[in-house]
């Protein structure tokens, strides 16, 4: 995977089993690029992503329905309230049944009628995670979900991820805060300069 002359990901063979995997590494290691490639938002220069042993096709609506993604930004509309954003994306995925649950899980009830543009960066992050969970995806791809969060808010996000997970689902959580993700992750992947330097299973230090 290259951007001009910059090689973002190279010689990367990664098999991610069901469970929650932490994705770690220094800045510019390729974490965000890897998440975007898996989501189908970035085409690879070479190679492919397989899902259920089939090449991922981002034009396949079934695959898109299966993915919940949070990138660097919140992916929300600033002029709409938190509730309106969740309703909007929920309707596009054909389900709004989980909205109440994810709003409660992330402790956003009192902010549901606040416009996203009026939220702090940390609250926007929580709202973004809620948005990614609203259609109950099979694959959850989170890029720095703990950015700008205090400890209590980070714990809420961790709890929301744990609540979402069930057998057969996959989550990949990219974070600088390895300790926080390792507390509940099934595997850890360390990237450096676009290469996987470590891929270990079962890293959870606590219980899910």
């Amino acid at each position, binding site marked *: 995977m290259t951007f001009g002359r910059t090689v973002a990901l190279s010689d990367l063979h990664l098999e991610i089993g069901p469970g929650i995997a932490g994705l770690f590494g220094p800045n510019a290691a390729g974490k965000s690029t890897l998440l*975007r490639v898996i989501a*189908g*938002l970035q085409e690879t220069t070479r190679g492919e992503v397989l899902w259920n042993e089939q090449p991922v096709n981002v034009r396949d609506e079934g695959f898109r329905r299966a993915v919940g*993604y949070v*990138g660097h930004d919140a992916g929300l509309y600033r002029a709409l309230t938190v509730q309106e954003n969740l309703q909007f*994306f929920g*309707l*596009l995925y054909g389900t709004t049944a989980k909205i109440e649950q994810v709003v409660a899980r992330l402790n956003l009830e009192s902010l549901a009628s606040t416009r996203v543009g009026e939220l702090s960066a940390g609250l926007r992050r929580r709202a973004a995670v809620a*948005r990614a969970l609203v259609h109950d995806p099979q694959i959850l791809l989170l890029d720095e979900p703990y950015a700008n969060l205090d400890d209590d808010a980070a714990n809420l996000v961790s709890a929301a991820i744990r609540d979402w997970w069930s057998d057969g689902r996959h989550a990949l959580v990219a974070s600088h805060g390895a300790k926080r993700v390792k507390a509940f992750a099934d595997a850890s992947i360390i990237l450096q300069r676009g290469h996987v330097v470590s891929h270990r299973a079962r890293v959870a230090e606590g219980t899910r």
Partner: protein
Amino acid sequence: MSDGMGFVAKTRLIAGKDLRIEGRAREVLPAMVTFVLAVMLLLAFSLPPGSRVEERVRFLPGSVSVADVLSGFLWVTVLFAGLIGFARTFELEREESALDVLLLVPLDRSGLFLAKAVVNLAFLLVVQVLTIPLFVVLFGLDLGARWAPMALVIVLVDLGFVGLGTLFAAVSARARSRELLLPVLALPALVPIFIAGTELTADIFLGASFQTLAERGWFVVLIAFDAIFGIVGALAFDFVLE
């Protein structure tokens, strides 16, 4: 709410979201209307006082009919007002990278194109409804019963304009200099539509009947471009956004 929203409903949902946000933020329409009013006012001073639509004005090295000048005024104003609006087509999605999320929802991307095109068309029509009557008054035009062919020309020009403008707004959406890129890409391709619109409008100002208008063939040009830009826009949108 259970699963089952179809293509049309999702497209309507996205368009409705954009209109709702514009209703709150009022960023696009006021800019377009202000531009049109300011340009019309300036143009009103550019013709000799008391010029009549049937006359010709001296325009070195020869002369040009006032009807042609006014028709050109009208469509150049609409063209640039439209480009101001179209440049904002994906601005809402850029703010918090919502475009990435929108590209992942289970909806054919032609639905996203259609939603954005409908919103752009709505903005353009609102601007025209607010400003064209003023244009008519300002330049002393008497359209009489010719409002119907005029409305038809407006709609046909708008459809092609919006189809192409929305497609090129998507092309330039992720570019750093998108405000510059959009007119550079769109203007050359829009020339045939605006020539057809200008020719038809000048004839309407001069009192041509619908039959005369139809015989000149410009309607065929407009309909052909509308169809081409609409179909190409919907088909190419998927690749353009990658």
